């Protein structure tokens, strides 16, 4: 994890435009980590773009209507708002399993997408809303300086969130998630409420997706309804599985990989970058069952073996 963070911090020093790419990648990585938490319990959500969009639009609304201009406050508020949304939606979702869980998440996110694009007066419709540059701890920074600062903040958030999520997944509450995937009925027989465990996980995953959306909104400077379209949800699941759901770093590795491929693909094959992503996804699924993270781990053990 530390290795990725150092790499993500140092590379843009050499290639400056990578800073923006990495910030957006971390935003998606956070959301994908949320999806990965639910995947632990064997629950696949094709609707987490909902929380990504709620986080992003929360920033836009807070800046426009509540006149909050401080980055730290904005992130905190956006995360809390999405966590609250996660509680409301989650209370309904945890009753469902398997395909129905996936599809209900999809349905709710699509309803939200339609509302975002149709309530023109409130949300700017399909044009979206502009997100001005917030201040940072009271300082008004110029856009380039702000982007650099945001990049470092994103890395700090990534490391912090990764540590907390790791602790959570290793705690009994997190371990119970794997138990739900293996056998939910047995979990209930030992007196643990499966729905309670799932609700906590759902709220956590929603908050993560919201924070990711908030980060992306500030980095991109614009929010559009497409943030909650189902193809983004699909991308988030893709990132989570591409990276490997075995460990917390997987989601971020997957996100960096995806954003880099996208950046390069737009350069030489703009029309076909989705197809390139699709093909690399199939290659990873068929040839690297543990994901990119598993591949890195295997390389690491092999290197260590050679040294000793």
């Amino acid at each position: 994890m530390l290795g990725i963070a150092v790499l993500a911090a140092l590379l843009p020093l050499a290639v400056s435009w990578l800073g923006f790419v990495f910030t957006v990648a971390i935003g998606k990585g956070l959301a994908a980590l949320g999806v990965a938490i639910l995947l632990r319990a064997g629950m696949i959500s094709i609707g987490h773009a909902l929380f990504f969009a709620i986080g992003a639009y929360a920033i836009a609304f807070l800046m426009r209507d509540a006149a909050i201009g401080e980055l730290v406050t904005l992130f905190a508020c956006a995360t809390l708002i999405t966590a609250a949304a996660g509680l409301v939606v989650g209370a309904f979702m945890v009753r469902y399993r398997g395909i129905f869980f996936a599809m209900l998440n999809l349905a709710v996110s699509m309803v939200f997408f339609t509302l975002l694009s149709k309530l023109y007066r409130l949300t700017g419709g399909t044009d979206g809303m502009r997100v001005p540059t917030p201040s940072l701890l009271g300082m008004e920074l110029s856009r380039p300086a702000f982007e650099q600062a945001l990049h470092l903040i994103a890395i700090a958030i990534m490391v912090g969130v990764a540590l907390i999520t790791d602790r959570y997944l290793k705690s009994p509450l997190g371990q119970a998630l794997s138990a739900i995937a293996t056998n939910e009925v047995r979990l209930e027989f030992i007196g643990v409420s499966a729905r309670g465990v799932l609700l906590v996980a759902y709220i956590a995953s929603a908050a993560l997706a919201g924070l990711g959306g908030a980060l992306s909104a500030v980095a991109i400077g614009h929010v559009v309804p497409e943030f909650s379209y189902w193809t983004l949800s699909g991308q988030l699941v893709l990132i989570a599985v591409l990276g490997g759901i075995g460990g917390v770093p997987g989601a971020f590795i997957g996100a960096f990989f995806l954003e880099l491929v996208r950046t390069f693909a737009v350069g030489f094959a703009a029309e076909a970058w989705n197809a390139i992503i699709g093909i690399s996804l199939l290659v990873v699924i068929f040839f690297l069952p543990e994901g990119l993270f598993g591949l890195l781990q295997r390389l690491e053990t092999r290197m260590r073996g050679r040294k000793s």
Partner: protein
Amino acid sequence: MLANYAPLIVDGLADAALIFFVAVGLTLVFSVLHILNVAHGSFYSLGAYLSVVIGSFVAGRGWPVLSFFALVISPFLVTVALGPLIERTLLRWTYGRPEALQILVTFGLFLILEDAQKLIFGVQPYSQDTPMLLLGTSQIAGIVYLNYQLLLIGLAIVVAIGLRLLLKRTGIGKLIVAVVADQEIARALGIDASRVFMLAFSLGVFLAALGGALASPTVGVSPGLGAETIVLAFAVAAIGGLGQIEGAALAAILVGLARSAAIYFMPEFQPVVPYLVMLAVLLVRPYGLFGSIGLRRV
């Protein structure tokens, strides 16, 4: 009073017919292969593209009647080209793997097919109206209806009954039912389950492409059609109870009527309607209208 709503109902039923073709294909594939095919909508848009291209070509050559032939031949072409190929190569890998993985494989396929369509057909919208114009209109009780819409409703009924008969009365249908009921026992009895899988998947592809081809005279065909269609098909299949053909039919009628009512009364929110119906139905019946509750294994 009722006469005022008759056009609304016919619009809704014609819409329902188109939704039914896609949703029933999705539900059929799910019931046999236990895979939720995210790429299903892409077969729909492929069928639509192909029928518009072939239809405009033959109409341009002076045989407008042949555009009906295009509506029928294009789903066959899509099915023959992609159905067995995709099942044999991609999906076969995923049987018995976790659900998330299966959905992702089809999502990868969706991404590839969507871009392939953009590369082949470009990003400009296509449309054709020859079949609609040829059939003209008819006047019933003082109200003018499009004959094409009536044809759609009739075709949907024929397909629904045809599927029912296929599954209940024919040999291959009984094999499909046996594999759905218990794959292991079916294999033990000597049924070639992998052939049944391939047939069922190809049938699903055909139904989706047929829906797309038949829809092409009524809507514009442009990129993003597949993505839109698949979520609608998901909603309808879930309302009906996954794997239930009658369920898909009833759900398609519900959603079609609700959509045309929405266009009439609050056109802005027409896209939300299918999901609201879905949320309402699943709130009351968590496994859909015709779905049955699975056993919880200890």
